[in-house]
Structure formats: structure tokens, C-alpha cells
């Protein structure tokens, strides 16, 4: 079976201007949402706080739970239903209560008073102190930074510096789009989301490199078509692969999104957005950028690219 005919020749490069506008609009909406909401919506891993997941033996409502917990006098309590049946909830409070009589126990006790003993099953407790939250935030950012530097070095070594810059630009695009989507959909950024961001970075690079690799190969063969022509040809030649791989990856991510359960849900959401953005950015950001660079500094490329054409 074939989805993409072998002689396909879409004019991707010609759509660069429209693509840049689209990307800017999407990113600006995301940034607008971030600014409007006062920064990223950090979950307890990074902001500190307490989160409990509770299953009730009978369905109840978030408002009733809040009522039952009024006595705790917690500032910003968030009660959120998990799943379809209204018997499992996440309760999040910004306080940590580092002392031994944990906040989680107080919450259970208060709920048992309203719902009756034995009707409340505490399934999960997460308490992160502010100091640990700060550490985790710093470590997470460092991990992102090191991953970027490491891949930048590797791509510069395998290709050329400007290709590395194009790749980094593409993945910055993907991370920004995903971050914006998280803000728009009010999703919390937690430790697993950092892992998701790194997976997106990995995926985005992966995708970009496949096309760069093809560009490198085609420059020798079709140099006469001009750089933009070579890039467009390379995108078209790898199109079938791009669609198939993105497709299969999206299939499993959708499976995770639907069946993976509460903890994995946001993680899968990040991957979903990130992979779509990553596929798009490979074509319209990473490839467009090297063309842009070539236009500014022409004639430079062939020598540089030819050097490792069969690396």
C-alpha cells in the first residue's frame, strides 16, 4: 500500500511564509495565555503542595467535597474529578504541612466525618515541600538545558552548525507550542511532563535529522536545482516516512491518552501536541531555516555539506 505516490512533489518551501505566520500565531496565543495566567501552571512537583487521590464508595460531587473540607481553611483548594464515574477525585492544596500530622490525614479525617468511616479510600498522597519543589524545578530545567547542549553538539558534529541551529529552533517551536497548549487547556506541569518535553525534543530532533540527512545526500546529486529545490525534494522524498512514523507514534500516544489512566493522561497529551508540532516543524521550521540561512550567506553550503555525505 502507498499513501504518498513516489513522484509526489508538493511545494512545501513555497508555503514557508504562510507557515511562519501560522507558527507565530499559535505560539503567540500560547504565550498570551501564559502571560494572562501569570506563568506556567506548575503542579505540586514544582510549586510544592499536597495532592491526594481519593475514591469514594458512592458517587459524590466536587462541591460537596469542598464543603466537607471547609474546616481545613485551605486557601486555594482544587477538587477535580478523575474518570467518568463521579467517585474518584483529586484534591490539591498549596500547603504542605511538613509536620508529622500530615495534611493528607487531616483531609481523610474530615472527609470520613462527612461521608462515614470506611467510605473514603485514600489511593495516593503526594506532598512536596517548597524546597524540594524548587530543587526539582531547577533540576528539570537543567536537564532540558543539558539535553539541548548535548544534541546541539552532536548535530554540529554530524552536520553543520546552522543545521543544529535549525533543529534547535524547530524543537524550541515544539516545546513552546506544547507549553502554550498546556496553559490554554489548564493542564498542570509536573515531573512526568518534563519527561514528556524531553521525549518531544528527542522526537522532534529525530524527525528533523531524517530530513537533514536526505538534504545532505541530495545536495551532491541534485545541487543544480538550487538549495531550496534540494530541500523541497528531500521533504517530498521522505514524506511517506514522515507520515507513517508520525502516524504510528500518534497511534500509540492516543492509546496512552485514552487508556493510560490519570497519571499518564497529561503526559500523553503533551506527547500528542508535541509530536504533531514536531512533524510540522521539521518541514516548516527546521528546513525553512536552513534555506533562510543559505539565502543570507549563499555559496557556503556545498563544501560544508559534502564533507560527510556518507557519514
Amino acid at each position: 500500500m502507498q499513501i504518498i505516490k513516489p513522484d509526489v512533489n508538493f511545494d512545501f518551501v513555497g508555503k514557508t511564509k504562510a507557515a511562519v505566520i501560522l507558527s507565530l500565531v499559535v505560539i503567540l496565543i500560547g504565550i498570551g495565555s501564559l502571560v494572562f495566567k501569570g506563568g506556567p501552571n506548575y503542579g505540586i512537583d514544582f510549586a510544592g503542595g499536597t495532592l491526594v487521590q481519593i475514591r469514594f464508595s458512592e458517587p459524590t460531587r466536587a462541591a460537596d467535597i469542598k464543603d466537607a473540607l471547609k474546616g481545613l481553611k485551605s486557601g486555594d483548594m482544587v477538587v477535580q474529578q478523575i474518570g467518568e464515574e463521579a467517585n474518584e477525585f483529586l484534591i490539591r492544596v498549596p500547603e504542605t504541612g511538613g509536620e508529622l500530622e500530615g495534611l493528607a490525614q487531616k483531609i481523610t479525617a474530615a472527609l470520613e466525618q462527612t461521608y462515614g468511616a470506611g467510605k473514603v479510600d485514600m489511593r495516593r498522597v503526594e506532598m512536596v515541600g517548597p524546597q524540594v519543589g524548587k530543587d526539582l524545578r531547577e533540576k528539570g530545567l537543567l536537564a532540558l538545558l543539558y539535553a539541548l547542549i548535548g544534541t546541539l553538539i552532536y548535530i554540529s558534529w554530524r552536520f553543520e552548525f546552522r543545521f543544529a541551529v535549525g533543529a534547535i529552533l524547530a524543537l524550541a517551536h515544539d516545546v513552546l507550542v506544547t507549553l502554550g497548549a498546556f496553559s490554554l487547556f489548564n493542564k498542570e506541569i509536573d515531573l512526568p511532563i518534563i519527561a514528556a518535553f524531553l521525549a518531544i525534543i528527542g522526537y522532534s530532533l529525530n524527525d528533523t535529522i531524517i530530513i537533514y540527512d536526505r538534504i545532505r545526500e541530495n545536495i551532491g546529486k541534485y545541487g543544480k536545482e538550487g538549495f531550496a529545490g534540494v530541500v523541497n525534494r528531500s521533504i517530498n522524498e521522505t514524506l511517506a516516512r514522515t507520515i507513517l512514523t508520525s502516524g504510528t507514534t500518534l497511534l500509540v500516544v492516543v492509546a496512552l491518552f485514552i487508556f493510560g489512566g490519570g497519571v499518564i493522561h497529561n503526559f500523553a497529551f503533551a506527547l500528542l501536541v508535541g509530536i504533531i508540532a514536531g512533524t510540522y516543524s521539521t518541514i516548516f521550521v527546521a528546513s525553512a531555516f536552513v534555506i533562510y540561512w543559505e539565502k543570507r550567506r549563499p555559496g557556503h553550503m556545498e563544501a560544508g555539506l559534502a564533507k560527510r555525505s556518507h557519514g
Partner: protein
Amino acid sequence: MTKGFKWRGLLVLVCLVLSLVSLAPTLFRDSLPDWWSKAFDPIHLGLDLQGGMHLVLGVDVDKAVEGRLDSVVDQAENLLREKDVIFKRVDRQAGEQLAITVYDEAAGMQVDALMKENFPSLEPLTITAESGYIQKNYRLSTREVENIKDYAVRQALETLRNRVDQFGVSEPTLQRQGENRILIQLPGVKDPQRAIALLGKTARLEFKMVAEDVDPQQAVKGNLPSGTQLLYERRVDSQTGATTELPIVVQEKTVMTGDLLADAQVRIDTRFNEPYVAMDFNAIGAKRFDQITAANVGKRMAIVLDDTVYSAPVIRERISGGSAQISGSFSEQEATDLAIVLRAGSLPAPVNILEDRTVGPSLGRDSINQGLLSVTIGGLLVILAMTIYYRLSGIVATLALVLNIFFIMAILSLFKATLTLPGIAGIVLTIGMAVDANVLIFERIREELRLGKTVRAALDAGYSKALSSIVDSNVTTLIAALVLFQFGTGPVKGFAVTLSIGIVSSMFTAIFVSRLIFDYFLVHRQVKRLSI
């Protein structure tokens, strides 16, 4: 390129057998001989999958330094008295310092000499004159402070380990983290609340004489004579179970501490059928206790645990047997836990909870099921897509994929890595990305076939041309995954583990194993047309 077909086949076979052997205990736990399951552990599940408790405790090391200074202050006071040096006072000051105030220069010189001789670790500081007195300041050296802090954390780790051992959790993990943090993991713990209470208790046991001449009510209002201390006595109503706290004033000076305990046991008081904790002192402790009780017959002695008075009985007679008891209307579990912490020893400094992640067993089971479900569905969808798109070659890719998952699990079990929920997500993601290598190869082969090459030539060209793309793209992802592994914590690490293993293993299966299968059909079945 069908050279060494046999050797390559053998390599894959060896990997396969090794994986089967190491995975067998995970797959069929019960039907294997004992030696087998012992040699290869089943895959170790993270706390989020099997349920359990992950705690990070912070040791308040500054308190340990203060404690040490307090005892130096005590010793210095005794020393100066012993040597008949006239001094105004000795006190602890901020900045890891203590100050000795004397009336004249002569006494100051005496103090200098004595301190230098007896406390070499203290650094003398500038002398500040304070309205006619001479104040000698001494500071703990930076190195000494570091030592005290370090020792406090190590001691705390040791004590916590003792407590966990007595609490009875299988395969607990206790680790020092950074300078003053301790990580504790208790898989499958049943009563997290109790575990926290048990671990977090400082368990500093002190015996202090009650200051009978001070009215507690006055003390509550703030009229506290110097040298005394206001504490609260915990009383439990045996009928209602309600606790009340009564103010009680004690001498600040501790006459004895719990360090001298040899053992602590729960006993039942037969008269009231109430549990109490019986303590036995060691030889030194027994002697001390004997002296103290002899000197204070008729007075009340408060038994203080972590600044709460548990009881303050009247000493009726000299106690020379070297045993004492704490009673205070405990429940049986409270008494048991108290005995545990007393036996395990006190923490050198208070601890507080910095991080607590507790997952109940039911949620863990749900997570495993959801994880398995998404792996299965995701895998089936990918297999379906590949088979429809690449027909028989798609089935080769499928075989490589299944083998890949199998290898990932085997490597996890061989390296005793921990499988977590994000780890499962990593495997699912690997499934999606692993087929990429095969997609790249197959697309190349199709291109080569379109150029009119023979099956054999197209295969060769397809594999070799796709290789650089596959390696480059996988290495970059691997870099990201390894960084995650190095700098990530908790869930991030679990994800990085399976992703890294998955990338390496997928390169093996998607390139090496799939090629082997193609070669088999080409050479041994003389296939002339490729279903791709």
C-alpha cells in the same frame, strides 16, 4: 551481505534464550524451580505500580550543632566550677558560638588556658568588653560544624534504618541524599500514617525533676523562674480517648537521657489492663538512675519524650534495679511503636518531611492494568498499520517489534532496573518510534526497487543507505534520554530507563534482526519478489 548468516542467527538465538531465561520468573512466577526464580529476580516494580511510600526527610542539622554547643556550654560550666574560676555566665550565642563572661583579666586568662586545653576544636574570637565585664567568645570551627552535621545525618540514617527494620517492611530502601536529606522507600507499606509517626519521631527521652515550687498556672502566664521550663503533660481519658494537655514546670537541667537505655519492651499492666513501656538501663544508666532516685526520694520526676511529659511519678524509694517504665494511657500500638523508637535510639536532630509520595496498592494494580492495556492496544494498532502498509515486510517489522518489547523487559530484569508507570509510557513510546527504523529501511528499499534493482541489491542498498539516518536520529534521542537519566528524578528517571533501553534494543531488532529474517528468505527460500 549474507555473510556470517549462521553467526548472526546464533547471536539472535543466544539473546532470545537469555531473555527467556531471565524473564521466566516474571512471566510464570510459581511454576518454576526454586533456583531459577532465585537466580533471576522478577522485574522490580516501582512504588507507583506496587504501592508503597516514598519519603524524603530533612535532618535539621542546625539543631544538632546547637545541641552540641549546649553540651559544650554544660561541660565548660562544670569545668570552670571544678577549677574554681569565678565567672559570670556561660551561654550559647548565634553563629555557632559560645560566650564566657568573667569579671576580670586574670579570670579571662584562666579561661583561655582551660578552654584551649580542654576544647581544642573551639576557635577563640575577638574579646568584646561589655559594660566592664570581659566576654570571651569561642566558635566551633567550620570543619567541626561540618563534622557535626555530617555525623548527625549519618546517625539519623542509622537510627531510621533500625526503626524501619523493626517496623517490618520487606526490601526497604534508605539512602542519604545530598547533604542533609534522607530518602526512604517502603514498598507495600500498609499503614503510611503509622510509618510516618514512627520514622519522624525524634524520640529524645529525658528525665527532668519537677519544679514543685513553681505554680504552673503562673508559668503559663509567663512568670517562669530562670532555670525552669514549661512543658505539657499528655493525659488520655481512658473512656473517651480524648487527650488533654496539662501545664507542668520542670527544671531545665536534664538529669538523665535515653542514651543509656539497653532495652524497651511493651508490657501490660494487669491491674488496669493497660499497656506500658518497660525500659532497662545499661550498667552506667542503672548506676546513674540509682544515684538520682536516691537523692530525690519524695520528689517527682518527669519522663519527657520530645518535650512532652508522659508521666511525672513521685520517686517513692531508691531504684537500683536499673529499670523504669513509661505509662500514659497508650493504645497497644502506640506502646509498641514507642518501644520501637526507644530501642532504635533517638534521632540526633529533629527531622521533617520534605516530600511524601504514597500510593495505595489498589491504585498500583489499576496502573499496571492500564499500562498493559495501552501497551497492547498501541502495539496492535502499530502492527496493523505496518502490516497493511508493508504487507509481509510489515510482518517482519512486527516480529522485530515484538522481540524488541521482549528484550526491553529482559534487560530491565537482568539489570535489576525498576519499572515505573512513566517507564511503561517509555515502552509505549518506543513501540511507536521503533518502527521508524523499519519504515526508513522499507521506504529506501521501495525507492531502490523502483529504480529497477534486484531484490537482493535493493535490500542491500536500502539497509545501508538508511543506516546513517537511523543512527543519527537514534543517537540524538539517546542523548536526550541519557541526560534525563542522569539529571532526572523519580518518574523522569523511570521514563529515561525504558526509553534508553528501548532505543538501543530497537536498533538491534529493527536493523539486525529484521535483516536476518530477510536474508533467511532470500538465501534459504530463494525468494525472488519482495512483498513490501
